[in-house]
């Protein structure tokens, strides 16, 4: 298997083999982070720009650490410090950055398709670090990596995703990823946060949380996307928490070895209670740890080292 893509824009277009290749490479990079000296010279002389038009702590830090552990030079640009506030278009910002010859641009943007615009016009490799409600491919890959690590397999699983599915790019990328391996995926949330035609993605929709979590191998909680209008679709956060907040009793209805995941940032007491977030089944911090290895793998593969 050889990686041939210039960009990583979404999971939907990836093959199973490509996904497995990322996991395989990530596996070998995970060990680097456990060393005393956490650095390999693999990408020395390469430049990675992270271009974030939406706030992010986890994803941006994760990409930056991933690039640094591979010895690439990293530059971080966020919307508040960029010329976007001076009225520059995304295209012009991108062309200006390209003139400085970066090798990879990691972009997060609140508009779906923003990474595709860059990919169309730039020679640099583009990594989508989340574009509106479209996709967040590295999150789905690190989730799959974590599932494999914890469950020993990525097939024949029952995965329940609970929350604001309508506005979630994480849900979409995870649905594509999990369905490619034939897993049963159940999406749960109030009907006003379930997008029309969701069943066409091969998932089952359950409105009652109790029914959705029964016998689940994996439960993923998602936050309400306030910035994308999630709040206006429900009467109140309080009411949401009482209907869809993940509690111990829900965990007990799942399989005995269920794992609880959350892409972060968590809103404790809303979509997930402390007892679950900090409980024995939670793998939320493992997800964050694995994010570095998966992003190292992506950078490595995109920079043509994947043959």
């Amino acid at each position: 298997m050889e990686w041939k893509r210039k960009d990583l824009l979404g999971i939907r277009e990836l093959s199973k083999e490509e996904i497995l290749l990322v996991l395989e490479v990530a596996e070998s990079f995970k060990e680097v982070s456990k060393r005393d000296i956490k650095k390999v010279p693999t990408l020395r002389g390469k430049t990675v720009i992270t271009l974030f038009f939406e706030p992010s702590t986890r994803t941006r830090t994760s990409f930056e650490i991933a690039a640094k552990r591979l010895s690439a030079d990293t530059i971080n640009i966020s919307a508040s410090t960029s010329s976007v506030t001076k009225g520059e278009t995304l295209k012009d910002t991108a062309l200006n950055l390209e003139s400085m010859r970066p090798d990879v641009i990691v972009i997060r943007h609140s508009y779906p398709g923003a990474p595709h615009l860059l990919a169309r016009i730039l020679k640099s490799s583009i990594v989508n670090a989340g574009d509106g409600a479209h996709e967040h491919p590295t999150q789905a890959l690190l989730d799959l990596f974590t599932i494999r690590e914890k469950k020993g397999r990525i097939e024949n699983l029952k995965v329940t995703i609970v929350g604001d599915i309508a506005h979630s790019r994480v849900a979409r990328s995870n649905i594509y990823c999990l369905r490619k391996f034939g897993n049963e995926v159940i999406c749960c949330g109030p009907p006003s946060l379930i997008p029309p035609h969701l069943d066409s993605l091969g998932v089952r929709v359950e409105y009652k949380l109790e029914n959705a979590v029964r016998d689940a191998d994996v439960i993923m909680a998602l936050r309400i996307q306030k910035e994308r209008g999630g709040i206006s679709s429900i009467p109140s956060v309080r009411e949401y928490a009482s209907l869809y907040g993940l509690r111990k009793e829900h965990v007990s209805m799942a399989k005995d070895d269920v794992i609880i995941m959350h892409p972060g940032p968590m809103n404790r007491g809303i979509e997930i209670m402390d007892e679950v977030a900090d409980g024995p089944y939670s793998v939320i911090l493992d997800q964050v740890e694995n994010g570095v290895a998966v992003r190292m793998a992506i950078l490595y593969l995109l920079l043509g080292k994947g043959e």
Partner: protein
Amino acid sequence: MRILIRRGRVIDPATNHDAEKDVLIEEGRIKRVAKDINVRRRDRTIVINAKGLVVSPGLIDIHCHLREPGFEFKETIETGTLSAVKGGFTSLVCMANTDPVNDNRSVTEFILRKAKEEGYSRVFPCGAVTKGTKGEELAEIGEMVAAGIVAISDDGRPVRNASVLRKALEYIKIFPIPLISHCEDPDLSVGCVNEGFFSLITGLEGNPDIAEELMVIRDIRIARYVDSRIHITHLSTRGSVEAIREEKKRFNKVTCDTCPHYFTLTEESIISFDPNFKVNPPLRSKSDVEAIKEGLKEGVIDIISTDHAPHEMASKDLEFNIASSGISGLETALALSLSLYHEGVLDLKELIRKLTINPARLINQPYGMLCEGAIADVIVFDPYMEWVVDREKFASKGKNTPFHGWKLKGKNLLTILDGKIVYHDPHLPIDS
């Protein structure tokens, strides 16, 4: 100047005429339509051999945006009308969403004066329904009618307040003009693509088809209630076609149009995130496209308009959801419409009817006919000629088209306005 068009297939839907004839044009009028016209003084006559070509009345577009005044960087009356005659259109109705808005007599007069000085085609301004197209107070419709508007519309947005729409429909009964309605519930349509599978997988916010249909139903019911003339523009959904099909059975003052992109493209195109596929209302599903074609075939849809919406590249070279909506459509409309003929949806006469006499009747203008005595707005086109769309060759300033690089079948070759040649394609030899 005399023009003799020889042996073309002369199609005049207004008189149900379709036969190979010669057409003699003199002093701005159709002098004769007959077989083998002999002219004396051949030297002073331009003779065009139209064997194998179609001779039709000049096309009439009841929905375009000429952008002047205010957005001359997108289009001007000069470039827009040049684009029109190149595409086979001799008359245009230009929408009121200019800057300033055409909601008063002086803007109407400005447009007409510019059209007279710089225009290549006829231009008929459409006035706003409400001041500033804000949907609150009625514009001075009577003043604008006196100045020359042929319709009113707040196009770009619906008249949100049903009571304001009712008053406008009542008020225009004293004038021979229709109200043209852009139907879209503003609360249900905050997105930029059709709501469905493709909005789901792109994450782009969707506008459901019912956002259009609810407004179509509201508007035609108000029109029936006050017995006034309404025209629903740029139909895009199956439900809208069904609503109008039903309404036409009991109320005869409702008409409607659709645009070439609504019977050519589907929502699937947006998967590329290319803003050239962004239009308002959005591209719909395959089922909607089928329904639009059925509506055209059955005569539920009376007119094909272009919704020519030229934009500068800078406003399209953006992220999809903030890019401008619209297609620069005057130069591709005829060929795209001819696909309805090539696919067997409409015969040539019925197709031309929707581009000539039906729009002329909507705006009560004496054009769109090709019979003896008619005003000589005439085109000659080849329904079979294949050509490749090159946006760089557009006469329009708007290069925003999703059809760039497409091979289309059917091309306008000659445009005559008021008995004078205003455009001719080098493929058509002219002997004078």
